């Protein structure tokens, strides 16, 4: 019975492809693939059909499917293109086979039509979806690793002063890592002042603020001082609007200012090498004209 359906489908593949194309073209307008060129769309559609028919013909060989999915993923086409396409294919094929059967009243036969078309399409869907999700999972894990690497560097800029620049969104997991690095680093570098630079943190909400406050308190406990620097105007506004109380911490708008007060705390200052400062030199030049 199944071979009979298969024969019908394979012998009339052109007609089925034509029906499928017409259906899929409608899909194109209403979603995802609108910005893809017509030519590429057509050729990919043909390839998709070829892959499906090859798979049906060869009793579910997955090699072609794998290659095709790789290509589609590289092109960055959405998964819904594949699933929608296969749904349409299922519908069209079932319609076609049914219209070619003589005995329309035999429910057993109709059932087996559905059954066998499902049997052809299911493994392809499964394979393609697996390929897609595998690809996504890989991307996510790679990015997670990359994020970990960027996560919480600690820079000892000079004796007793250390800077931790934070870039990107802070979540709970990262906050924990930041705190560990911060405390261990403070002890390892024997720092008296730690500057946490949040210039690169896009959003400071209550959670982020809570993590930063915790970090600053922990730094205080191990015996160093924490200065929060890089507070941009919009962040200052958010902090106050959210009612977050940072009055117990010293905060500065820029790393430069923070560094200056760190120098002050560690009882040092920057002096120009020569006796005269730049301003005085410029003044002298102007005077001599």
């Amino acid at each position, binding site marked *: 019975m199944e071979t009979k359906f298969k024969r019908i489908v394979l012998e009339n593949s052109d007609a089925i492809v034509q029906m499928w194309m017409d259906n899929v073209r409608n899909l194109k307008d209403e979603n995802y693939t609108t910005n893809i060129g017509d030519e590429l769309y057509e050729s990919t559609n043909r390839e998709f059909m070829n892959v499906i028919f090859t798979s049906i013909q060869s009793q579910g060989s997955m090699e072609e499917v794998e290659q095709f999915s790789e290509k589609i993923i590289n092109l960055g086409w959405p998964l819904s293109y594949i699933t929608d396409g296969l749904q349409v294919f299922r519908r069209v094929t079932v319609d076609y086979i049914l219209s070619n059967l003589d005995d329309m009243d035999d429910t057993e036969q109709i059932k087996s039509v559905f059954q066998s078309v499902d049997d052809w399409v299911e493994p392809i869907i499964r394979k393609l979806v697996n390929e897609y999700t595998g690809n996504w999972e890989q991307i996510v894990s790679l990015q997670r690793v990359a994020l970990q690497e960027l996560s919480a560097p600690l820079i000892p800029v000079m004796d007793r002063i250390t800077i931790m620049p934070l870039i990107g969104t802070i979540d709970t997991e990262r906050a924990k890592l930041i*705190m*560990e690095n911060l*405390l*261990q680093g*403070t*002890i390892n570098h*024997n*720092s*008296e002042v730690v500057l946490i630079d949040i210039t690169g943190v896009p959003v400071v909400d209550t959670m982020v603020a809570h993590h930063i406050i*915790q970090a600053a*308190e*922990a*730094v*205080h*406990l*191990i*015996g*160093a001082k924490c200065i929060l620097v890089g507070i941009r105007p919009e962040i200052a506004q958010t902090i106050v609007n959210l009612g977050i109380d940072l009055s*117990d911490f010293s905060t500065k708008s820029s790393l430069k200012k923070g560094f200056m007060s760190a120098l002050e705390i560690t009882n040092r200052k920057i002096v120009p090498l020569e006796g005269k400062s730049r301003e005085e030199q410029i003044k002298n030049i102007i005077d001599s004209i």
Partner: protein
Amino acid sequence: MRIPILKLNNYLLISIQTEIDDQTAIQFQEDLLDEIYKTESSGVVIDLTSVDIIDSFIAKVLGDVVTMSDLMGAKVVLTGIQPAVAMTLIDLGINMKNVPTALDLEQGLLKLHKELGV
């Protein structure tokens, strides 16, 4: 178990090297206040480098000791709190805002020196 309190000039040095239970902590509080009274010391350094666990009760006692010593005119600095201990304390919601801290004994003494303005 009693924690030894060493006198150095007009400072008192305490290095806690054992796990502190509640009894020891209370005993230590009394001993230290007695010692401050006796020696008329003006500064105290409590070093916690070898302490791996501080629970909320010990933290409270330490905080109290600092306030009490302050009342008696002696400044206290806590030194050498380990990162793991610091994180636990913060998780417990204890931030010891009013307690001066320092990285190690050396910096603790320097801090006392500065605060006392000697």
